[in-house]
């Protein structure tokens, strides 16, 4: 699927790393409840938001993602007790750092979505897609070859 760089018909590619226990299940619930959100979003399942390394996020941008979302259990509800607390620190620092380097903050987002929040999952994915569609294609951190 070649990414069309023309703004008018631009459809962003959004990669969502979802923890298995809350956010991925929330995504499943969005499905079972037949909610809709844009097909731009592609989910990668990880056990916990604390499994998501900055390397994966940077790699995604490099390979052409226009937006990256990390989604995990709400703080305090982590299946592994404390994983998302560590993730919260790691990603807040990364987010601020990427912004410091000139990256639009909207392009890298972190959300807490529980297994019961199918609606929230759909809403987050829709909003994110809309925002990033408005920003246009990502050229920063991207491999231009």
């Amino acid at each position, binding site marked *: 699927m070649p990414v069309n760089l023309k703004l008018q018909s631009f459809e962003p590619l959004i990669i969502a790393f979802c923890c298995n226990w809350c956010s991925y299940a929330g995504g499943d619930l969005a499905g079972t409840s037949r909610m809709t959100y844009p097909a731009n979003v592609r989910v990668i399942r990880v056990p*916990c938001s604390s499994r998501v390394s900055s390397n994966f996020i940077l790699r995604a941008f490099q*390979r052409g993602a226009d937006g990256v979302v990390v989604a995990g259990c709400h703080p305090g509800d982590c299946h592994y007790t404390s994983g998302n607390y560590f993730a919260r620190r*790691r990603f807040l620092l990364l987010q601020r750092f990427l912004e410091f380097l000139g990256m639009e903050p909207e392009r890298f987002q972190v959300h807490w979505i529980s297994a019961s929040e199918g609606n929230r999952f*759909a809403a987050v994915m829709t909003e994110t897609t809309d925002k990033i569609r408005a920003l246009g294609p990502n050229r920063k951190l991207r491999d231009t070859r």
Partner: protein
Amino acid sequence: MRRIGVFICWCGTNIANTVNIEGVTEAAGKMPSVIYADNYKYMCSEIGQSMIKEAIIKEKLDRVVVAACSPRMHELTFFKTAAAAGLNPYLVEIANIREHCSWVHKDKQEATGKAIALIRTAVAKAARNKELWATQIPVECRALVIGGGIGGIQAALDIADAGFEVDLVERTPSIGGRMAQLDKTFPTLDCSACILTPKMVEVASHHNITLYTFSEVEKVDGFVGNFEATIRKKARSIDLEKCTGCGICWEKCPSRVKSEFDEALVMRKAVYVPFPQAVPNVPVIDRASCRRFTREKCGICRKACPAGAVNYDQEDEVLQKKYGAIVVATGFDILDLDDFGEFSYGKHPDVLTSLEFERLVNSSGPTGGRLLRPSDQSPPKNVVFIQCVGSRDKSRGKPYCSKICCMYSAKHAILLREKYPEAQAYVFYIDIRTAGKDFEEFHRRAVEEYGALYLKGSVGKVFPDGDKLLVKGVDSLSGHAVEIEADMVVLAAAIKAKSDAPQLARLLGISTDTHSFFTEAHPKLRPVEAHTAGIFLAGACQGPKDIPETVSQASGAAAKAIILLSKDNLLSNPCVSEVNESLCTGCLSCIKVCPYGAVAEKTIEEKIHGKALKRRVAEVNEALCQGCGSCTVSCRPGAVNLKGFTNEQIMAEVDAICL
């Protein structure tokens, strides 16, 4: 080159309606390493599964991708399918093209495109999947129960009845715990001792239970199925074998100290059994108050003992034992009321805590069950009960509800009337909480049949006035400030965690909440398990609880322990972290982020330039690791990797998804 097979499910019309199955199958067939692609109406059906099995065998597939519903739904099904065809189940990947695709997108072209991308991603990951095997961990078929109250007693009995050996460790000289201090129990008003004592005796006589009273757990190492505990049997100074429990020693003992069991309302001797029904019914010498030990004088008890059981030279004994499971049932304490001076507790003898009141109405208590005022030994006529003293109080006490006070205050109001039909009970309450079987009925009986006057409101202050206690409070329903001349005031002091609970938690590697209660693994679905595998929780050490709840939780904890002990081996989740020692720098960041204490430090020896060199590296205990992968991210060089979700696999997924 891999030989990957892709199987696309229609899920009836669920997927097929929005995803062009033929198009997807064709695209999948062209993906790298894919040598076989097919589709079927219901992949999870018998026929669908046979299709996969056949293809695995016929096409010599070494990886399988099933594009169907969520892996949370049927991953295990397809794992079994692959295993049945002789393929390691961990070589199967699922592409979720239903919940994450066909069900959430309307446009067929878009959904088809996305389905292809998801399959491509799964294929890319599958190509890097490795065979994984669950390891077997042998289980030590013995349980340790810490705490000999009703929770620990119940858990020990249940596990022992299931045929496993149990060691029950109790810190005080006797088992029985808080329940032994109680008089009657709500809502049935049966006598606490009458229902507890037989259980205590059963523990003592059970062939599978070894009782360690006056003992403490000092250290716990190991992990689920393989704990090793160090238990200190404190010197009792009395020979358990020789003593007959005749009681001459404590009759003769000249030292008197406040009785812990009787909430300091009376004195006990330095050599004592805490209460008449104690198990074992063998005294201990409290060396801190015994003249033999404090002043090196005396020796009366040794002279008096007809069995020659007194042994001043006895020393602590330290045992090391192995266990497969641990049940923690260490109970609770009562909030210290120093900050609640307005109630004059500790200043006036007739202001009591509910537990003290319990001793005063108990027939084995200081007054032989005749409820008398400590000040002048007269029967009280007006008794004011004040609930929520320190409970639901985030300023001076504990923000939580202590849960049992509403019920025991009603019980006390009833017991008061039963002792003295002319006496009047006043109960100040904020809210009445009677959520339990027959609880509301019990509370109403206290009001309607036993005439307790319930006042919704609080007490501002208790003013001792001559031999009366002037209680100033408010009845908020009538909107009047009220004054009651009471003979006795009883405070429902909040329940709190044992003050040394955090130490025990550290020792066991389990966690506590902000109030030092032990935390359960999941508040709804795993309420009797601690976060650390193999450790279970029972009773008020996990949060305020009444007796039936404690007993249920204890039986639940016991059942969980029995499930564990009845296995010869434990199968571990193979998706756990592993350390590449050659990459490991030994910074040990992974240890810091592991919620399960599953990573440890180890020293390895290497030859460098011909020299044998020792260096530290991290090591994952696969039995403890739950596979969250937090350690992998803390590891900068990528020496720690999570099997099933390796750096290589996720990177391949990212690359494939972006194509």
